[in-house]
């Protein structure tokens, strides 16, 4: 992929209060490209899901670092990477199935990856048990009205 026109990299603790912070920062970053209201809502929701996974699943009862990198490209493409160094996912394909959850007792719906996949234009999940998980999401913003 081409060199990004703008990049923002963040590291924060996997605390639940940072879920809203992360999606607000993503929205603020993307605002520079004048997204539509719907595109902005898509990105906020997808980021919220990915960061919640780090809080709920990656580090379980512990707290660890969440790394978020956002890239904006000349062609109005946005790439958002959210990475943790947590427990990892043994079977990514199963984890991505709609309604699949390992935490039903806390009323997790199992829809996180489905939401990310539905609201973004690209979703890649790489994970190694014991090493961590990296979620990469692409959003192609619509052309600006002339």
């Amino acid at each position, binding site marked *: 992929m081409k060199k990004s026109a703008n990049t923002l990299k963040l590291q924060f603790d996997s605390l639940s209060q940072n*879920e809203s912070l992360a999606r607000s920062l993503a929205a603020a970053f993307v605002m520079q490209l004048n997204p539509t209201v719907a595109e902005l*809502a898509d990105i906020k*929701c997808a980021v919220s*899901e990915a960061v*919640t996974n780090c809080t709920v699943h990656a580090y379980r009862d512990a707290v660890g670092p969440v790394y978020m990198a956002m890239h904006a490209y000349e062609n109005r493409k946005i790439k958002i990477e959210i990475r943790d160094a947590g427990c990892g996912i043994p079977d990514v394909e199963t984890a991505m199935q709609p309604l699949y959850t390992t935490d039903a007792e806390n009323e997790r719906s199992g*829809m996180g990856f*489905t939401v990310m996949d539905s609201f973004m234009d690209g979703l890649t999940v790489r994970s190694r048990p014991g090493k961590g998980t990296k979620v990469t999401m692409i959003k192609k913003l619509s052309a600006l009205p002339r």
Partner: protein
Amino acid sequence: MDTKNAAVKLESVNNMLRAAITGEIDHHCAKNIRQEIDAALLSASPDKLIIDMSDVTFMDSSGLGLILGRYTKAEEVGTAFAVQGAHGRVRQMFDMAGLDRIITFEGDVKK
């Protein structure tokens, strides 16, 4: 930042419990809302529980778990259940998860 953690206002009228949620529903605040609604549900034993989502400004999949959980809880205690005022993106989330086939959605709340 323009985020507002979700809060819930509970009101009991004619043996009907109305839980009006405002703000942004995510994993961080879902637990408190769950506890507040469940405490009111168990103490009041209403005929019907209505979740008013007219003033929800953001919801991720934590909201789906929250609403499905309250539906299940209401079923357990024999209380009717409905969601009111789920608009735009919030309603889209429910439809995506197929909850529109399980839960009764009522129209926008008159203000």
